[in-house]
């Protein structure tokens, strides 16, 4: 069994979950604070779109943005000598874009469910907004935020369509586990596919269990009395 797809996938999923996690929290917080209105609906729609679009369409848009003949892609290549398409970075970009809505939605839902009175109470007690966020909102929203993280990680790990479009399927470079499974099956090597499938299942299960355990521990103070 060639180990490179496993390493590439773990690297991609890890880097993309870090980006998605913090970006998701940051944007969810900004959107949750926004007044309800048309602009909020519009932004929310755009941010959630990758969740409902076929990943190939997301990949198509990413090609549209980062393609070397496109303004942004051209700029990055000409001035910074960065080529996004068919590079490892693009596997991360694809995973981030596709998994972001899961993180963002879960975090936003969790933030919005924190009792508003807690936030107001923090204000009347002289706590700064930053302190209120980290000491009050975050701890109380943690189960929701963490489960968003799990979902996003799992989604990033399983990302196929958009990755295939923008990163291609280059062995030892952009071939992640899902792409490797596809390639093995396409070339009739079912044995090879089995081992990759097993790895994906094991990694997914371990991550889920770890996160669940973590949530249970963190959740010890919330509403047990009710």
């Amino acid at each position, binding site marked *: 069994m060639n180990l490179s797809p496993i390493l590439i996938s773990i690297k991609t999923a890890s880097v993309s979950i870090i980006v998605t996690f913090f970006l998701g929290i940051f944007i969810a917080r900004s959107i949750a604070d926004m007044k309800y209105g048309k602009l909020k609906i519009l932004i929310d729609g755009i941010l959630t779109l990758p969740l409902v679009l076929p990943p190939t369409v997301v990949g198509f848009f990413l090609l549209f943005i980062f393609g070397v003949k496109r303004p942004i892609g051209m700029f990055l290549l000409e001035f910074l000598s960065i080529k996004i398409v068919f590079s490892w970075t693009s596997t991360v970009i694809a995973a981030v874009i596709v998994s972001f809505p899961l993180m963002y939605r879960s975090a936003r839902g969790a933030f919005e469910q924190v*009792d508003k*009175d*807690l936030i*107001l*109470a*923090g*204000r*009347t*007690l*002289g*706590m*700064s907004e930053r302190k209120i966020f980290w*000491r*009050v909102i975050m*701890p*109380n929203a943690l189960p929701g935020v963490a489960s968003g993280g799990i979902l996003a990680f799992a989604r990033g790990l399983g990302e196929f369509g958009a990755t295939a479009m923008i990163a291609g399927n280059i062995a030892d470079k952009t071939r992640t586990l899902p792409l490797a499974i596809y390639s093995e099956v396409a070339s009739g090597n079912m044995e090879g596919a089995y081992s990759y499938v097993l790895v994906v299942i094991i990694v997914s299960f371990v991550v889920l269990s770890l996160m669940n355990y973590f949530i249970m521990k963190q959740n010890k*103070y*919330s*509403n*047990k*009395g*009710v």
Partner: protein
Amino acid sequence: MSLSVSIKKKFKDFNLDVNFENDGDYFGVLGPSGSGKSMTLKCIAGLETPDEGRIVFNDRVLFDSQQNINVKPQDRKIGYLFQSYALFPNMTAEQNIGCGLKCSKEDRKIKTGKMIELFHLEGLEKKYPWQLSGGQQQRVALARIFAYEPEALLLDEPFSALDSHLKEELQAEVFEFLKLYEGQVLMVTHQRDEVYKFCKNLAILNKGKLIIYGDTKVIFNEPRTVEAAKIIGCNNISPCRIISSGQIFVNDWDIVLQTEKKIPENITYIGIRAHSFKIVNNNHEPNIMDCEIVNITDELFEYSIVFKNRASENSKKLIYKIKKNEWDSTTNKNKLFLKIPEESIFMLT
């Protein structure tokens, strides 16, 4: 100690328009749910922004729409006791009390310790809010506010989350603690007995409008408007017609009432509390109604008697509430005469 509030704020279903001043005595805001009471408190605390107006507290301008002043709630130094107490569920009692303090760890420990002692919370320091009873939660919430040393204290329906059998005891307890507090106290409630017991001054709010404000006892004796009379719990209200300066005809009860005092000309309604009637033996004097009993409801400590004016077919129903022992010792229940004492007649507009 002075607070002056004059604010307007538009909402979908009503417009808040409140104007009052208070010199430091306990101040109560009474009104039905949805009347804008809590919104008024939130505007004072800076948790909501009025559309226009001015809020001045102890010579500090907290809000002024014309001068574009809107002090952040963090800088207002106004404590707010939430109906649900709003204790942080992720923090212990101790951490809740100390969380607003900006000082060194040692100072925080000392201050928190003082509050725990003051509010009899010893032994509960490490407990989370869900492990505390309603009364204990309220004490933690008060301790948290006191630790922050605000210059005013706003209480939003402070007793509505408590079980009724605990309420009286805890009310008394809370007001013992509040005696230690030197700042101004404002309380919002829909329970008239709470304001009557605890507030020197009172404002009555309905649908966002301030109907009346002034000395609590005076308002309870002279509500002046129909809305205010209803909110302070006057059950019997009827339109009326002035006959002369000392005589007034009450439409719904079909009776002429006589008064020694001159009746103000703008009076259009008459009100009388269910407890204000007096049983008499005959109807030889004025202001006595021959009553036809429609229904008697057995309540916990009193009877609620629904009756009509026997002398009239058009009379609408009235309610009379009487202590049980008093009613049980009344002999002539079939021939009930009730006097409407002049001093308990509310003249309303």
